[in-house]
């Protein structure tokens, strides 16, 4: 079964007009996703912001969605491309369930399908401008993987996108361990999200945590983290810099 991804006049190699339809830059973007494996499955955290350049324009964007029965997809990067990917996956899951034969797509299959899609788009110089995190549980096996917009794909016990790679993963490398309880997992994710909130300009203080286990997906209601700004250094930040304000 082939899944065609139709773009009108899409062949930019042969058609000059199609060139103007290639993705050159992202416009409305989501920031980091952080995800970890824990005892019962996968926990994933993201904020609900959609930035328009440096403006925090949209504050109610769900960047994590359930895929089929066994997977959870989180995305950072261009929101419209994420929505497009959700459409492809919708079709994939629909066709899979139409077989009605006791087989179903697991997280590994979805991850690899996405890898193929992302890599193929990259080869046509028309990428889907996202970094995707795919987590899931099937038949007792927990799976967590990532695909970038250029098709780089891998699995790990904890993954993060964007700024999360630089700010969250060091924390996870130190503090993640196998068989985290749900409470410990959430605490760990919140620790990472708090750092991101302080340091990532595109982060907003409205986040969701999603969990996926053998039973299925639950995405929490949005909530905010407590922050602390009374550090002495914040009180008079320019004390040492003459002439600044």
């Amino acid at each position, binding site marked *: 079964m082939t899944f065609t991804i139709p773009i009108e006049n899409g062949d930019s190699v042969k058609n000059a007009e199609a060139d103007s339809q290639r993705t050159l830059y992202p416009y409305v973007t989501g920031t980091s996703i952080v995800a970890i494996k824990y005892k019962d499955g996968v926990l994933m955290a993201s904020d609900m912001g959609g930035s328009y350049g440096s403006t925090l324009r949209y504050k109610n964007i769900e960047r994590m969605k359930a895929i089929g029965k066994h997977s959870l997809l989180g995305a950072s990067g261009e929101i419209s491309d994420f929505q497009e990917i959700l459409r492809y996956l919708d079709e994939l899951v629909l066709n899979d369930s139409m077989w009605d034969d006791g*087989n179903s797509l*697991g997280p*590994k*299959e979805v991850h*690899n399908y996405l890898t193929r899609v992302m890599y193929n788009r990259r080869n046509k110089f028309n990428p889907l401008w996202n970094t995707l995190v795919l987590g899931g549980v099937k038949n007792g096996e927990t799976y967590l993987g990532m695909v970038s917009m250029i098709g780089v794909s891998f699995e790990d016990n904890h993954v993060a996108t964007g700024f999360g790679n630089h700010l969250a993963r060091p924390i996870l490398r130190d503090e993640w361990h196998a068989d985290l309880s749900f409470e410990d997992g959430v605490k760990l994710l919140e620790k990472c999200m708090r750092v991101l909130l302080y340091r990532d300009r595109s982060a907003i203080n409205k986040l969701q945590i999603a969990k996926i286990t053998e039973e299925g997906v639950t995405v929490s209601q949005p909530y905010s983290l407590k922050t602390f700004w009374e550090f002495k250094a914040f009180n008079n930040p320019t004390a040492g810099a003459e002439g600044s304000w």
Partner: protein
Amino acid sequence: MFRNQYDTDVTTWSPTGRLFQVEYAMEAVKQGSAAIGLRSRSHVVLASVNKAQSELSSHQRKIFKVDDHIGVAIAGLTADGRVLSRYMRSESINHSFTYESPLPVGRLVVRLADKAQVCTQRSWKRPYGVGLLVGGLDESGAHLYYNCPSGNYFEYQAFAIGSRSQAAKTYLERRFESFNESSREDLIKDAILAIRETLQGETLKSSLCTVSVLGVDEPFHFLDQESIQKVIDTFEKVPEEEEDGGDGEAEAEAASAAPAEQGGAGDQDVAPMEM
């Protein structure tokens, strides 16, 4: 079956609602040498009789590996069988590439059946003249399917196709209820015994049959001559009692089955293209 005015074209119905060309294609399957499949909860065994054109040539390959978890045994026009095996391998590997996961057998079998159906509804095509026993493993366990030139497919606990397959089927009918719980070794033994039934008293030697196995934690592979001979030795050691009883039954059944099968072929020998 006799010639009639509705059997020239595959796209012509008979007044009684039959497509004779499709039925003739199914006759071709009966002309090929026997192929047998059986499955347990965790394993599938496919076996075939090695038939050679002449003493000078090697025997035709009738069992093909489609993937680590799927094998197929054919009977009928081997050329058609080879082409369909190639199609199956292609579908399987494309699925593996996209999803890094084995193609569920049930889905492969449906695609194969749909492909065969197309040939029953085009005036410029003919049906594939080969029956396929597809054995494989997927999430829901071990499966054995039979794909027909008509585009139908059925799932079986055990089945035999090709010439003198009725003898094998009778043997399998007696035993099939225990197959689900059979051990791998017992399953192989039953497959070889079923093959023996189709040989009509010819002594069973490992050179006369090909046996393949696949199972949970065991990718598809052929058994070597030695292993097959070892299994044969375990039951050929009781020649007098077993063979008389067994062969007597087999012969009687085969004798009654043979005229029915050969009636279709009529006065022709097996065509050289069919094995």
